[in-house]
Structure formats: structure tokens, C-alpha cells
């Protein structure tokens, strides 16, 4: 007997992760914590991709391949993001996002 999983449960888990990430991005003022919340949102998307890949069952496993691409892009984003954060810290002595307002109108 092959076990089954409710698709909607997996999608609900991913929705909870995504909403938590949205809250984190909006409520945190420390730049590194905001980046962590963005990672949470990207992971929610990946869970969705894998779940639908197993649900649709296409021969090319497109969903999983794109989940891999999302992981690669997330790694690039974190690398660049942390370089920028460290640069801001070096210049301003703070990484609180509401104090970095040089370009704010």
C-alpha cells in the first residue's frame, strides 16, 4: 500500500511559513533578521513547488528542478545581501533599516 499525503496540508504548511516570513520582513528592523525572514518565504515557495511536482507527476520533474534553481538564486541573494549589510555597518555603524534613510525623500 502506497501512502498518500493530503495536498492541502502541505500547501497550508507552506502558506503558514510564507505569512510568517511576511510578518518578519515587515516587523523586524535588523537587516540580517529581515534576510532570514526572506529565506523563510523562499522555502515556502520551494515546498509548494515540490508538492505540486509530486502531484502533477510530469516526466521532467520540472517542479523539483525549479526548486533547485530557487535555492541557487537564494544563495546568491544572501551572499550579495550580507555583503551590502556589512558595507552599511562599516559606513553607518548600524544595520537598523529605519536609520538607513540617506535616499529617503
Amino acid at each position, binding site marked *: 500500500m502506497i*501512502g*498518500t*499525503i*493530503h*495536498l*492541502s*496540508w*502541505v*500547501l*497550508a*504548511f507552506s*502558506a*503558514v*511559513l*510564507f*505569512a*510568517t*516570513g*511576511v*510578518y518578519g520582513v*515587515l*516587523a*523586524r*528592523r*535588523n537587516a*540580517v533578521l529581515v534576510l*532570514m525572514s526572506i*529565506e*523563510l518565504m523562499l*522555502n515556502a515557495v*520551494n*515546498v509548494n513547488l*515540490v508538492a505540486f511536482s*509530486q*502531484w502533477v507527476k510530469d516526466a*521532467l*520533474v*520540472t517542479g*523539483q*528542478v525549479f526548486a*533547485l*534553481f530557487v*535555492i*541557487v*538564486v*537564494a*544563495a*546568491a*541573494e*544572501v*551572499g*550579495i545581501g*550580507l*555583503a*551590502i549589510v*556589512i*558595507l552599511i*555597518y562599516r559606513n553607518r555603524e548600524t544595520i537598523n*533599516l*529605519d536609520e538607513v534613510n540617506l535616499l529617503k525623500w
Partner: protein
Amino acid sequence: MSAQDAAFLVLAVIGTLAAFRLVTTRNVVHAALSLVVTLGMVAGVYLVLAAEFLAWVQIIIYVGAIIVLLLFSLMLTKAPIGRDALDNQQRGIAALVGAAVLGGLLFLVSDAFSGDKIQPVHTTTEQLGSSIFKAFVMPFEVVSILLLAALIGAVALARKEEP
């Protein structure tokens, strides 16, 4: 309820709790450790969904590399501790927006997919590799260039200027 369902529920509950802790804790290192737990549980969800290559990639890249990067940058920026130092004044609005997103997504999911079930089929690494290098060669090359550009950009940004 199948064994896969039960395993998924355990993983999802632990992952959700760790995610909540990540966005509410007052200590940045605890936030990073909560992120480790959440990412590990997501890897477990991939295993339950029979995507084992992706699960190990998740462990190696996220838990192995990205968390170390985040911890290093927390160390280098002397992140403070305390609610006022880590959160801004928009917590109420942020919680409202988060709840609205969650409500909308849950309504959509339960409306469209309630009752549908996945029968996970084991995806071999061979399958995934042949798919990447036959059907998705072009996106693969583009993503390699992107990674190279990001690497060079990060080095150029974070390097100390020569006096």
C-alpha cells in the same frame, strides 16, 4: 490517515513553531538557530514527499552554508539584543498584513485543493540530473552565470578599499 500524513504533521508543527520563534525572539542568535530548525523540518518534508536529492541539497546549502554566513554577519555587525532594538514600531500592522496573507492563502488552498491527495513517487537523482542537463540546460547555464556574478559582486562590495 497514513504514516506519511502523521510524519508530515509532526514535521510541520515543529517547523511552524520554530518559524514563529524566528520572527518573535529577542535574541538574534536564537533567531538563527530557529531558522536551522525550520530549514531542517522543510528538508524532512521533502523526504516525506520522496524528493530525497532536494532534501540533501537543502541540508547542505541552507543549513550548511547560508546559516554559517548569517551567523558570521551577526557576529561582524555586533547585533544588539532586546525587543526595541530588533523590532520596529509597525508590529501591529505587520501582524495584520501577515494574518491577511495567511487567511487569503488558506481560503484559496482549501477552496481549490481540499481532498486532493499526493501519491509520492520516488524521484531518483538520475532522473533529476537528466532533466536538468537535457531539458533545462539553458536555465542551468544562466543560473551559473548569475552565481558567478553574485560571487564577484560580493567580493567587490565587501573588500576593504586600498588606502
